[in-house]
């Protein structure tokens, strides 16, 4: 069948090795997640629903909680900044570095800095930036970008990584994953020590106490703020939760939903600079709260997507993501969450990504696994409607014209007549109907025998 949607073409043309890496990487994590959540709780859905309501409550009172978080961080000795868009946040980080004569940065994974292309910006302004998450480090040396929220190099296999390490002078070709990891450990260790700034994102922020919560398995975020003197956390305004107590709920969910662990190995709670009598840790903590169109999403009828805690569960379970991989989504956030979030964050570039909400079978699996219970299929439908209303051409490609069907469905008299005449369909060779919509549909499906049309007659004679 002719594929016209961009994501379909990408999936069709995907290198079989990359397809297999994506498929297996996603499938394994999904199964582990199911097992862990159901092993540990009698009613895991209650947990998901409560977490979703807390996030929704926070979003709908965001002005209050953001002001509270600002005051809490200031009380802790941290400096709070606000950045309205990508240019503002990049410029803010550069200005903090320049004010402190800082030349180098070690960075722990942050999707938001991917949104703002911060790494490239800082390098163009003469700074050395080193990604420290193993996957992100490999992407950096390959000049590539993430294809998954939690496992950014799910699309790569060990042979390609070994070749990259050899090319970068990190030892002779060796594709043993343990050797690859040890070589990265040795290489990055000195980078942590030499860097001036540790740059991180933030998984959650407690408004009550002013704590950034960072969740990593490798411990790289901890290293990023052990040896150097300045910590900069770049955080989307949607990451707030009301209290420290609420964190217990989210930390239990994010590990299980992300990787099937009870808890991620390192959960860090950072309130501000180190205590005066401690030898290690930053002397300055800068929190940059970033909008970058999140307030536009908040104003839209898709604001529920801002609950997302970036666990990647919806990616792993999605049949479309498994077949196409993250790069097919042409944006920072792939998979079902990306199909909603990316077109919204694109602002007036929405028409360029308006096809992404169509990259879904609407099977509902993403909603079922979401730890904050985001109704992703509903949001996808809302965005399909938006694309249609705005006449976004990329969303219409390959879509047959269903105007006749729409007329039939919206006229009760015509609909009833059609149903009563439905039996004639059994005698018409429908595969020969010249209408493009019928041809498109029947290219891959067989019309079942029509058996209806009698209900209304039967119901009319009922007492």
């Amino acid at each position, binding site marked *: 069948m002719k594929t016209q949607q961009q994501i379909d073409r990408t999936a069709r043309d995907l290198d079989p090795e990359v397809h297999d890496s994506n498929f297996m990487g996603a499938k394994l994590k999904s199964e582990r997640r199911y097992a862990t959540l159901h092993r540990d709780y009698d009613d895991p859905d209650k947990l998901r629903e409560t977490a979703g309501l807390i996030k929704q409550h926070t979003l709908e009172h965001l002005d209050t909680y953001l002001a509270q978080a600002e005051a809490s961080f200031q009380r802790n*000795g941290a400096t709070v*900044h606000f950045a309205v868009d990508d240019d*503002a946040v990049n410029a803010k980080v550069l200005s903090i570095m320049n004010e402190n004569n800082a030349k180098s940065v070690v960075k722990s994974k942050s999707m938001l800095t991917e949104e703002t292309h911060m790494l490239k910006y800082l390098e163009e302004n003469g700074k050395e930036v080193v990604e420290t998450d193993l996957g992100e480090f490999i992407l950096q040396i390959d000049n590539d970008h993430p294809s998954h929220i939690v*496992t950014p190099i799910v699309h790569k296999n060990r042979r390609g990584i070994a070749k990259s390490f050899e090319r970068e002078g990190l030892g002779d070709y060796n594709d043993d994953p343990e050797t690859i990891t040890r070589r990265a450990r040795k290489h990055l*260790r000195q980078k*942590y020590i030499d860097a001036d700034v540790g740059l991180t994102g933030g998984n959650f922020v407690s408004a009550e106490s002013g704590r950034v919560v960072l969740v990593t398995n490798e411990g*790289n975020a901890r290293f990023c703020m052990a040896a150097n003197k300045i910590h900069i956390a770049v955080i989307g305004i949607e990451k707030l939760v009301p209290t420290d107590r609420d964190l217990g709920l989210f930390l239990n969910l994010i590990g299980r939903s992300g990787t099937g662990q009870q808890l991620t190995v390192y959960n860090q709670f*950072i*309130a501000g600079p180190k205590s005066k009598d401690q030898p290690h840790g930053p002397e300055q903590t800068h929190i940059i709260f970033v909008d970058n169109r999140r*307030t536009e999403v908040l104003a839209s009828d898709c604001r529920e997507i801002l609950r997302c805690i970036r666990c990647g569960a919806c990616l792993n379970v999605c049949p479309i993501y498994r077949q196409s991989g993250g790069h097919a989504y042409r944006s920072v956030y792939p998979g079902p969450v990306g199909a909603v979030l990316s077109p919204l964050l694109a602002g007036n570039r929405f028409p360029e990504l308006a096809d992404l909400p169509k990259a879904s079978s609407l099977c509902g699996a993403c909603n079922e696994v979401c730890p904050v219970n985001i109704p992703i299929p509903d949001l996808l439908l809302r965005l399909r409607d938006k694309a249609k209303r705005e006449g976004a051409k990329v969303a219409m490609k390959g879509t047959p014209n269903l105007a006749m069907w729409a007329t039939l469905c919206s006229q009760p008299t015509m609909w009833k007549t059609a149903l009563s005449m439905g039996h004639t369909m059994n005698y018409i060779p429908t595969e020969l109907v010249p209408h493009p919509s019928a041809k498109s549909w029947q290219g891959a499906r067989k019309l079942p025998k029509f058996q209806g049309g009698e209900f209304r007659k039967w119901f009319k004679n009922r007492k």
Partner: protein
Amino acid sequence: MSSDREKIFSAIRAALDPLPTRTEKPEWEESLVVCKPSGQFDSLKAQFADKLAFASGRFYDSVEPLAEFLKAEQSTFGYCDPALAHLLDGVEGITFDTEYDESKINEYSFGITKGSAGIAESGTIMLKDGDTSARLGALAPWIHIAVIDEADIVPHIPAAIERFGDDPSIIFATGPSKTADVEGILIEGVHGPGIQVALVLS
């Protein structure tokens, strides 16, 4: 021209003003986030030991077997919190610094620091900056040993969070540093410790 702060707050209020109603914060009981018990344990210490092993950590409740383990691992030079140095006094074949020297980051094969609490439900070690003599001492060596008072073992995460106080930096560490970035294959010891140990003393 308004600042970024004002622009963001103004945009948030404009986005929220049209909402006819707003979601209430749900009340939730502590039991919602407490795991089903995974076995019968006669003490929090026993549960902590079991769950730590499940998270690929190691548990000791006396110094002698720990010292034997370090020697067996050929981990005989490291860093130790000065307040805990007495634990290894007189142990033959093991030497350590009590002041962390960054130039020896690749020489320290173990680091001994105080653990502020242990979480029995998950085998998690809690490190508060105020109790930690050196962040790098708990992170950079291949083996990290957290010394925890048995009375500081708490049942679950909410109980650990209640102990946060005003500490500027707190860590939950559950097992060794790990990654599965390369083909989903689990490798321990990425940037932090490859072996995470809890020494629980009464």
